[in-house]
């Protein structure tokens, strides 16, 4: 079964773009640190989708390998990021992004 014959390529890309845009918007407007964090995952997966789409389209396996790398890095990032979030919560007793403003003294 050839997916691209049934569903046009642009649909995959539009979905990918929509996922990425949702991730960006969520990253920018959400105030809870965990939600922001999830938005990043959303962006990564949006990108992943376009990687596999193009890999499938052009029969290039490189794109698929990139996806594995992205997933790997995302997993590592999730582990580190969650640890940081827990540490921040312990120290500040809040997860509101706007109140974590110690980067400017």
């Amino acid at each position, binding site marked *: 079964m050839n997916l691209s014959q049934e569903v046009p390529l642009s649909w995959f890309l539009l979905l990918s773009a929509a996922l990425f845009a949702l991730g*960006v918007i969520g*990253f*920018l*407007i959400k*105030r809870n640190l965990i939600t922001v964090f999830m938005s990043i995952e959303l962006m990564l997966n949006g990108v992943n989708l376009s990687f596999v789409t193009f890999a499938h389209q052009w029969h290039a396996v490189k794109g698929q390998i990139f996806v594995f790398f992205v997933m790997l890095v995302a997993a590592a990032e999730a582990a580190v990021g969650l640890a940081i979030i827990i540490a921040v919560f312990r120290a500040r007793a809040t997860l509101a*992004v*706007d109140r*974590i*403003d*110690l*980067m*400017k*003294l």
Partner: protein
Amino acid sequence: MNVVPLWLIPALPFAGFLINGILGRRLPKWLVTTVALLAPLASFAIVLTAISSLLGPEDGPSPFPFVETCPFPWINAGALRIDFSFVLDQLSLVMLLVVTGVGFLIHVYSVGYMNEDEGYARYFSYLNLFLFFMTVLVLAGNALLMFVGWEGVGLASYLLIGFWFQKTSAADAGKKAFIVNRIGDVGFLIAMFLLLANFGTLTFTEVATKLGMDPGWNGGVVTVIALCLMLGAAGKSAQLPLYIWLPDAMEGPTPVSALIHAATMVTAGVYMVARTHVIFDHSPFALGVVAIVGAATALFAATIGLVQNDIKRVLAYSTISQLGYMFLACGVAAYSAAIFHLMTHAFFKALLFLAAGSVIHGLGGEQDLRKMGGLWNKLPVTFVVTTVGVLAIAGIYPFAGFFSKDAILYAAYLHGINGKILYSVGILTALLTAFYMSRLWYLAFMGKSRSEDVHAHESPVSMLGPLVILALLSISGGWIGVERFGKFLAPSVGARAAQVGGNPHMELYLSIFAVLVALEGCLIADKYYRRKPERPARLAGALPAGYKLLANKYYVDDIYGAVVVRPLLGISKFLLEWVVDVALLGGLAWLLGGIAVFTGSFLRRWQSGNLRSYAAWLAAGAAAVLLYLLFPWATAWADSLNFILKAAGH
């Protein structure tokens, strides 16, 4: 000639300098003394072996000039090659004898004089350093190596004048000597540049050969070279107009004044003129300048010496005056007479300074002649040797000074019409010299003690020994006679100038006249300071303007202060401190800082600390890049940015 290792002559004092300079404070005192005395003694011994090689058959081949060159060139650039080369000839031999011989005696004297001083090892390391540079200066076969010694003795002089640097006056005097000498050094440097440009060599013998080959070298650039050399010599040998540092140099320990500022270093200028005499011989004008500067300095310094009350300052002005004699001799091309006087002067002036040091030592640091008096029975040895020194410098027969001063005056007298004027100035100076030296003698040793709390004591043997030896030299140093001395020096400095119109009778009459003049000077001093001691004060009262002029040393220091130092300081203050430092450099710093602060006042709003604001800018930036990549036509401004980055070298 059997080989004398010339390089050892400077190397040994240098080793002494290193040992005492680095380890001196940790070594026991006797070891410091041994090292310090062995170095000049060994150098002196080497010089003596060089003399012994002269004692061969008289008609045999002359061993001089004996040249020793380091196998490796010092500077080797294109056609220019400068070696570390030492030359031993009659001229440098005489100088070396004086430098190492008198130098050694003064080292011995210093053992007693500086015994109590905390900086004992430092003192001797400096003294050895001085001997190192002085022997390099004397032995140098080319002008550049001589310049090394030249600067080095200046450094040693600076260190030793400012030896008691805790005293502001001593530190200032050291600086003054160093800075005034720099002015002369500029002349020496320019002379070397001109030598290189015109002759392509700095080696003395090669310059002489090239000058001799081409009779066209007369006047012009040769005169300029000679005058520049004379400027250097005037700085080092304290001649007009650069003599002002020498009286202040008396702030140093007295043996230093004897060694550096009387016997050896200050004669380096005379030595340099004699060494480069070929250049001077080709420029009658420059020789005339040398003679006039010498005669003027001799008279000028002698008049100031009349009224000084510090025993060392009297001697300092007399040194300047005697150096003037030597330049006068150089100026009438009587180089052998100049070197002859240099040698005898080294003996009797070192003697006088060391005797003055003995007096100062005996009186616990008192230098004011007005507070001395009646010391002849308290310091008997010092009294006797000072008497010898005074008679020698006054030019009384048969003391050393008589022969050399007479040779100079006779050479001047025979030097045409102008020579008669130089001769008159010289005779007048001789009168003044005899007067002020006798004045010193009367004030210090005769009459009644003018200070109650003086418990004068004679100096230790280590100080009296050198005094006695120098006294013997001051008596006998001139007996060799300028004829034989000149004949010995002739291969180095040329035969004595043809003495037109000279005859033995005239020489005899002139000698008798000179001695009578000197005796007259002594008699006047006798009248003023023994028989009628109230006269000097009355005379000063009768001629207040003249006395003030002399007592203030013709206001030369004040004039230099007003004309040179103050404007220079003012310009430095205005131009360097205010314009360059504050306005330019400070302004630049403030401008850069201001730009950073100004732009920062806007840019820092970016750095809000708000995470979401950073994220928004990040997204906006990514969007902008994307936009640029996708729609180049819509982002013309980015092209211009790209252009700027390229122009900036990206």
